[in-house]
């Protein structure tokens, strides 16, 4: 893959990942973000060990932009207003779920 193809692919993948996360999070709220983060981590685990170009375009740009850390915090603040335990559970579930999903993806390659 040429540098130009990687650059174009990077832009398309990052734009698609960002807009998909935005739409799903708007539609489903924290559950949507949780689903996106766990499925994105699983897909990135599956991609580990692929070539540099694939990892840059699909991994760094597409899945990197699809998943988010910053989005968790405002959602956790909103959940904490209802119940601090709910916010703590949401953050814990996201991190442990995403790590377990990435490990599961890694184990399949």
């Amino acid at each position, binding site marked *: 893959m040429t540098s130009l193809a990687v650059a174009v692919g*990077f832009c398309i993948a990052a734009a698609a990942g960002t807009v998909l996360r935005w739409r799903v999070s708007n539609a489903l709220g924290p559950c949507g973000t949780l689903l996106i983060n766990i499925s994105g981590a699983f897909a990135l685990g599956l991609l580990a060990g692929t070539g540099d170009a694939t990892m840059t375009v699909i991994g760094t740009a597409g899945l990197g*932009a699809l998943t*988010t850390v*910053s989005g968790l915090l*405002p959602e956790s603040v909103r959940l904490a207003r209802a119940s601090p335990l709910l916010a703590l559970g949401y953050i814990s579930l996201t991190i442990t779920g995403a790590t377990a*999903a990435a490990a599961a993806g890694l184990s399949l390659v």
Partner: protein
Amino acid sequence: MTLRTARAVAIAGVIGAAARWASTTQLEGAWALLVANVVGCVLIGWSTARHERMRRSPHRPGTADRSPTPSPWLAAGFCGALTSMSALALQLATYLDEGRVGTVFAWLGLTIAACTLAFVAGRTVVIARGAQP
């Protein structure tokens, strides 16, 4: 949710992802990701606090932003794509695969503490400015 907003979110997402990728050319992978996550959390803290203040503003009722979320291009677009949960999860899963359980907990603790402090710091800047006479 107009096409124009979606376009702004997409462009900001490309810039955020490119900034995260660029940070890996300057720093070792795990540190680069930590820096990207912390910068994104400062900005999202600043953005959400600023948005809340604008919604509450009694001075500009006709022009204040009444939407329930901060600027989508900055929050969901730039900050969302600058930070990455999948990259963090893969980093932690790789350490686990290598049997480095202590390193997993160290990175986890460092990331959670740094991102939370960054978020609070971003909010504090807006709140402190709002409190000034």
